[in-house]
Structure formats: structure tokens, C-alpha cells
């Protein structure tokens, strides 16, 4: 059996197993037959093995330049670096959908292993939903975007034809960030299938109590985090590769990834109300069902060509399939919610809008409002064309106008929300918690005005960032003092113990702090500088306090590209800070002689000096575009801080006995206070 046939075989096996898992787990949910349950669990896990083998076969075909396979010839070439041959597997439609299936089967594998402990009807139906999703994606891979087809299956060439070389990977994708961005982003997108499946399983089995929420908490946090990191990695790639000086352009595909993340963020907050108070049960169902549906909708936008974007995949027939799939997901979710609505009604324990519950509701309103604004702006060109017949552009200024005020209010809420008490927050408590942070925020804003800053949004934003940061640090301080006084631990030890005692809360604060840093980076955009210059050797230009001198260029040649590298001396006053080496790469083997730019960036905590080499004319006059982008590094630092916070949040809990021992004193104090 030829290798590509082996790939086919394992994919078909996976599809058969997925169909079997769907049927068997549905029967198991209905009849509670143990043999069916066990059988469907095994089949569900075996799907992962089948797809993993198929994926490895495809990797092997890429690594061994098997250009008789159409997809390998399209996406790889002999002179591509081995590492990039491996990542080229997901650089185009067919392989990326196979990667999607692999990630889905990995989640399915681990979700089934987790659910084996429960063996409840909800778990059986959740397994059925996971399998149904797998059936859809495997069908798309096998029948529409098959990566194992031979060239002779696709093009009019003789059977057995093997081209001497492949077309090669799109040069823009030859970058480390692009190698890891798709798997991480897909892990975020696909990961929401697990809470979605639990929710549908709970609705079908009528077990809509707290079980599904408890089970899904970590399964929601992980994809939420991966989706955030995936988007930031995509931003990093755009920043260093696309060369337009920014990392976020409100492009439809970027927006598509943002939509489910916004709803998921609303969910990870509002789910706390359900866990603590048993409220918002319908609402949380709506949010999680919407999140996964939006993930599939985002995939539809990215891969159907319905919106024009710099990131979209090539035109493909899969658009209608995905649109129908979105309709099925949304329709099924709505129907089940309608049928189980009465079961989802909850008791109410609430006193005042100035409470944690009120804060979460406002949080949800703003996240949903932001999602709606982004969705509306993204889809408006299509809506406008359908209604008026003329296409409209909705560019970055629209999104900035709408989203910046929303973002600022959300930042305010990030500081206020965690300090509100459940049910009702007294005026005294508000004063106690917010006086100092309020003063800090105000002082920062006033200082910036005195120093000459005039951008209103930037002044508010920096003030809010200072406010939120001081609320976070005062919470740690207050927590450590309380812990120290109740346990007698020294301050630093008490601070450390806080993380062990309440990982979710204190890890959550670290995540919030990461977002503050990211927000500081975003605010820096208000002060970006840019210029275009043409220089002869020895000439220089000035931008944002830097003097940049063109010192010449060098040329080199390798198996893939001709590289022209400009040498630029960077000075502040008379002090030389270093040399920047922006490059132009010419992919001479490609029929279109595609050119890419390798941006040179001098990054500091204060700002990035970002220079793009545009080439030169016959008089040796070199052309450059230069930017000074303040505070960009804080976006990447914020991403790392957020990662640290998420590790704390999802770290496995300590054993119950130990925790019980640790919380005994505060509990006792609470009892005393109640008495």
C-alpha cells in the first residue's frame, strides 16, 4: 500500500470510528448500557490514534519531498528547511483542516478519559456531540480538502507523474511565529468544543445542575487562554513579517478570532455567579453554546472567502458546508435551550446592583456589546452590499471609534469588579477599597497632563491602568496581612501561601495584571511616529529623537532567496546605540519572484524603532520606511504575565484534606463574624 493510500485508510477508519462513537454513545446515553458506554469510549479514543497516524504519514510525505502528492507539491519544496517542511503541513487549507481534526481528536481523547470517572448520561451525550463534530470535520477533509490526493487525481497529468520540485511554502509563512501560531490558535478554537459538548450533553440528559459547570471549568479556561495567546502570536507575526508597522489591523480574520474570545471571556466571569450562587444558569448555557458556534462561524469567515482579508485561505468550496454547520449548531442549541428552559430557572440571592453580581452583569454586557460591535463591523460590508448594492469599507478607524471607549470601561471594571462583595457592597467598603487606587489613577492622569500629554484616551487609559494595578497590589497586600494575622506567617510567606489557598482568585489577578500591561502597550499606539525616506550612503534621517544613518548594503545568495541587507547606524545625539539590518528577500525560484521584507527592530521597554528596507534604485538610493512605536514590548510582556497567571489558575488543586486544614481559621473567623 502506498503511503498516501495509508493516509487515506487511516482517515476513513477515523471517520468510521467517529460515526460508531456517535451512534454508540447516543444509545449509551439513552439506555445506560455499560457495554455500549465502554465501547463508545474506546472507539472515541481510537479516533485520536487513527488521525494521529494519518497526520504523521502526511508529515513523512512532506519531509521526504513526495511531490507526487498534490498537497505536498503545492505547499513545500526541496530547499525548504526541515523545520519548515514540518510546519508546511498546516500552511494551507487541506493540512490545516487535518490539523484541526487532530486537535479535536486530542481534546476528545482527554475529555473521554476524564468522563470515564462519571459515566453519566451527560457524559455519554457529550461524547456523542464530540464525535458528531469529528464526523463533520473528517468529512470535510476526506471529501472536499483531501491532503492525500495525487497530482494525477487533481490535474490533467499522466498517472504516476512526479514533478521535480514543489511550488514551496508561501514565503510570508516562513517564520517561527507562524509555525506555532496555527496550532495554538486551533487549540483555542477547537477546545471550546468540550464545554459545548458538556452543555449539550447536560441539556439532552436533563442534568442541568452544577455538574456540567464544575466539569467544564478548566476545559473552558485552557482554550480561552490558548485563543488569547494564539491571537497575540498572530499579532507578533504580522508585526515582524507583514511590515506595516502594527500588530493588529482589525482585519476580518483577526476579528473572527476575537469574536468567540470575547464571549468566552464573558463566560469565564459569569460562570462564577452560577458556581457561587446558582444564578444565571440559562445565560451561561447561552454563552458557552454561542462561543463554540462563533468559533465555527469564524472558520467559515476565514475559509469561505466571504470577506476580503489579507489572511484568508485560498477560495474553497467548503464555505457552504461550514455555513450549514453553523446553522445546525445554532439551531440545535436554541431548540434544546427552549425545551429545557424551565429546568434552567434558578433561585435568586441578590440585594443591590452595587455587588459582585451587578459587576459581572455589566462585564457581560460590555463583552457582548464589544462582540456585537466587532461582528457588525466585520459583516457590514456584506450587509450593505446586499441591501444597497454597493460595497462599503469598514476600516480600523471605525473599530477604534467604537471599541476604545468600551475597552476603557472594561479596564475600569477590571479594577472595580473583583473588590465588590456578593449581594451588596456598602459605601464604607467602597471607600476603603477604592480611595487609594482612585488617587493613584488620578495622580497618574494629572501628572501626564502636566507633562504635556494631550491625547484624552491615552490619559484616561494610563490612569485606569494605574488604578487597576493598585487595586491588584492592594488586594495581594491585604490578603497577605489577613493571612499573616490569622496564621502567624511572615508577610512574604503569607503572600506565597495565598496562591496555594486560592489559585483561581490570585492567579486571576495575575491574568488581570497581564491585561493591564497589554493595554499599556495598546495605548502606546496613540503616539506612533512614521516617516518614509530615501538615502544615499552616508546620509541620515531623524525620527523620534533617533538619528539613523545609512552605511551601505550587502548582498548574499542562498538556496531559496537573494538577500539584500541594508546597514543602518542608530544614534541618539552622538552616541551610537547599535546597528540595524533590515533585509529584502527575493524568492528567485518562484515564478512571481516574490519579495518579502525582514524588518529590523530595536526594541526597548520605552519604544520600538522599526525600520523597513523597501529596496533601492539604480543610483544606489535606498528607500526606507521607519516607525517609532512606543510601548509595544509591554504587549508581549503582558502576554507572558497572562501565561503565568493562567498556569496558577489551572494548576491542580491541593488535596481536599490539606485545603480544609488550611481554611479552617478563616472559616472559623467567618463563623464568628456571622455569630
Amino acid at each position, binding site marked *: 500500500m502506498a503511503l498516501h493510500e495509508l493516509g487515506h485508510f487511516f482517515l476513513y477508519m477515523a471517520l468510521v470510528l467517529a460515526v460508531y462513537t456517535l451512534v454508540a454513545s447516543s444509545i449509551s446515553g439513552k439506555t445506560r448500557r455499560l457495554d455500549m458506554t465502554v465501547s463508545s469510549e474506546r472507539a472515541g479514543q481510537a479516533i485520536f490514534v487513527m488521525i494521529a497516524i494519518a497526520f504523521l504519514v502526511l508529515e513523512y510525505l512532506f519531509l521526504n519531498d513526495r511531490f507526487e502528492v498534490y498537497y505536498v507539491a503545492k505547499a513545500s519544496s526541496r530547499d525548504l528547511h526541515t523545520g519548515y517542511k514540518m510546519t508546511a503541513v498546516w500552511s494551507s487549507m487541506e493540512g490545516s483542516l487535518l490539523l484541526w481534526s487532530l486537535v479535536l481528536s486530542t481534546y476528545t481523547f482527554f475529555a473521554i478519559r476524564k468522563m470515564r470517572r462519571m459515566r453519566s448520561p451527560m457524559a455519554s451525550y457529550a461524547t456523542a456531540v464530540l464525535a458528531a463534530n469529528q464526523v463533520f470535520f473528517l468529512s470535510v477533509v476526506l471529501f472536499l480538502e483531501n491532503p492525500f490526493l495525487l497530482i494525477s487525481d487533481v490535474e490533467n497529468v499522466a498517472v504516476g507523474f512526479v514533478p521535480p520540485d514543489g511550488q514551496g511554502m508561501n514565503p510570508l509563512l516562513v517564520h517561527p511565529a507562524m509555525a506555532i501560531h496555527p496550532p495554538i490558535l486551533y487549540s483555542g478554537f477547537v477546545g471550546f468544543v468540550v464545554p459545548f459538548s458538556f452543555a449539550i450533553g447536560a441539556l439532552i440528559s436533563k442534568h442541568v445542575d452544577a455538574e456540567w459547570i464544575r466539569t467544564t471549568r478548566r476545559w473552558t479556561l485552557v482554550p480561552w487562554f490558548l485563543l488569547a495567546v494564539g491571537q497575540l502570536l498572530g499579532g507578533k507575526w504580522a508585526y515582524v513579517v507583514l511590515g506595516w508597522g502594527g500588530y493588529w489591523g482589525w482585519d476580518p480574520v483577526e476579528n473572527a478570532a476575537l469574536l468567540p474570545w470575547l464571549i468566552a471571556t464573558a463566560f469565564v466571569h459569569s460562570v462564577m455567579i452560577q458556581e457561587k450562587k446558582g444564578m444565571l444558569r440559562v445565560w451561561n448555557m447561552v454563552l458557552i453554546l454561542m462561543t463554540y458556534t462563533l468559533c465555527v462561524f469564524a472558520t467559515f469567515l476565514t475559509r469561505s472567502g466571504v470577506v476580503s482579508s489579507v489572511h484568508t485561505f485560498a477560495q474553497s468550496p467548503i464555505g457552504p458546508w461550514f455555513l450549514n454547520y453553523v446553522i445546525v449548531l445554532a439551531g440545535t442549541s436554541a431548540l434544546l435551550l427552549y425545551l429545557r428552559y424551565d429546568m434552567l430557572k434558578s433561585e435568586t440571592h441578590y440585594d443591590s446592583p452595587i455587588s459582585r453580581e451587578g459587576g459581572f452583569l455589566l462585564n457581560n454586557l460590555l463583552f457582548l456589546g464589544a462582540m456585537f460591535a466587532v461582528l457588525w463591523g466585520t459583516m457590514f460590508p456584506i450587509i450593505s452590499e446586499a441591501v444597497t448594492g*454597493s460595497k462599503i469599507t469598514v476600516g480600523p478607524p471605525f473599530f477604534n471609534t467604537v471599541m476604545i471607549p468600551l475597552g476603557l470601561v472594561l479596564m475600569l471594571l477590571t479594577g472595580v469588579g473583583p473588590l465588590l462583595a456578593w449581594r451588596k457592597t456598602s459605601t464604607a467598603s467602597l471607600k476603603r477599597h477604592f480611595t487609594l487606587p482612585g488617587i493613584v489613577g488620578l495622580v497618574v492622569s494629572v501628572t501626564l497632563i502636566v507633562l504635556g500629554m494631550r491625547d484624552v484616551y491615552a490619559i484616561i487609559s494610563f490612569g485606569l491602568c494605574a488604578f487597576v494595578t493598585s487595586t491588584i497590589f492592594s488586594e495581594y497586600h491585604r490578603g497577605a496581612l489577613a493571612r499573616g494575622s490569622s496564621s502567624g506567617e511572615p508577610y512574604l510567606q503569607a503572600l506565597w501561601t495565598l496562591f496555594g489557598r486560592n489559585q*483561581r482568585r490570585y492567579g486571576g489577578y495575575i491574568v488581570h495584571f497581564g491585561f493591564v500591561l497589554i493595554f499599556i502597550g495598546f495605548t502606546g499606539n496613540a503616539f506612533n511616529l512614521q516617516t518614509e525616506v530615501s538615502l544615499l550612503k552616508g546620509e541620515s534621517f531623524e525620527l523620534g529623537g533617533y538619528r539613523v544613518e545609512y552605511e551601505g548594503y550587502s548582498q548574499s545568495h542562498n538556496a531559496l532567496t537573494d538577500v539584500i541587507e541594508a546597514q543602518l547606524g542608530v544614534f541618539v545625539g552622538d552616541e551610537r546605540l547599535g546597528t540595524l539590518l533590515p533585509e529584502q528577500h527575493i524568492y528567485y525560484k518562484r515564478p512571481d519572484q516574490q519579495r518579502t521584507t525582514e524588518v529590523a527592530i530595536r526594541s526597548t521597554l520605552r519604544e520600538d524603532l522599526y525600520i523597513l528596507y523597501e529596496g533601492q534604485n539604480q543610483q544606489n538610493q535606498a528607500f526606507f520606511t521607519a516607525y517609532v512605536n512606543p510601548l509595544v514590548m509591554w504587549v508581549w510582556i503582558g502576554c507572558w504575565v497572562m501565561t503565568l497567571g493562567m498556569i496558577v489558575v489551572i494548576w491542580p488543586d491541593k488535596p481536599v484534606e490539606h485545603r480544609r486544614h488550611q481554611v479552617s481559621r478563616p472559616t472559623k473567623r467567618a463563623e464568628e463574624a456571622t455569630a
Partner: protein
Amino acid sequence: MKGLPLKARKTRKEDGFSFRVYCVRLLVILLLAGISVQSVRAEIEEARVMEVAKGLACLCGDCPNRPLDECRCGFAGQQREKIAKGLEAGMTKDQVIAGFVTDFGERIFVTPPAEGFNLLAWFMPVFGILIGGYAVKTVLRGWSRDAVRSAPAAESKLSQVDRDKLDSVLRERDT
């Protein structure tokens, strides 16, 4: 001249009016003024070009619909030159924009023009949030009603001070 006392030098300058020096000075001043005027005029021209460009979108297909004043691609550069030529030829800002609309249609605007059907682009997000706000208000009002109905006696067992204490302890434990 080196050996002459300062006063003598001064006297000599006052006495010896040099027409040639005067002309050179005048020429330099006029030249500098001319360059300065030119430079200010160029800046004003560029500012006018950028004012028009910032409302128009780059439609090259490779940039994410960035405004023409920010985008640095070749297409954006050509369009900025086109704006500059139009303004130099004495066209008004509106006439230049109208020319672009004729060439590219309404999609040349970087944001939807605030007129006709396109007003919806701007109003809907605000409208959506207002509707959402009303929904939140209704939910909170419903909660208040339900809470009063379901637990009328649950109030007032604790003083406000005790409740604050309890809240702070509970916050220690919860998330």
C-alpha cells in the same frame, strides 16, 4: 585687522559701507525666507493631502483597509500623489474625494459615510449596548423582586459593620 584695537575696528565698519556685503546679506536673508516659505508651504500642502487621505482606504488588497495617510504600500503612495495633484490643480477637498468615489465607489471611504443606510453601521453598536443595558436593568429589577419574595426575613440579621467583615472574610475564600 588683527592688530587693530576693538574701537578702531568698529569705526572702520561704520565708516566703510560696503554695498557688496549689503547685497550678499540681503540675498541670504531673502533666500532663507524663500526656503522657509517653501518649506512651510510644503508642510501645509502635505497636511492638506493627509487630511484628505485619512478618510480614504487603501484598497490594494494586501493591507487591511488602512487609511491612506497611514498605509505605506505603493498603491497608497500613488493615491496620495493623486490627491496632491488634485489639490495643486486647485480642486477643493470635496472635489478630490468625489473623484475617488467616481473611480472606486463608496468603498474608498475608510469608514462608512454617516448617511442613508450606512448610518446603521454607526448606530447599531450603540443601539445594541443600549438594548443590552435595558436587559441588564430588567434582570436586576427581577432579581430584586425575586429576592424580596423568596427571602424577606433574611435581611437585617447582621449589622452593616458585621456584613462588611463577613464580606471581606468570604472574599478571602471565594472567587
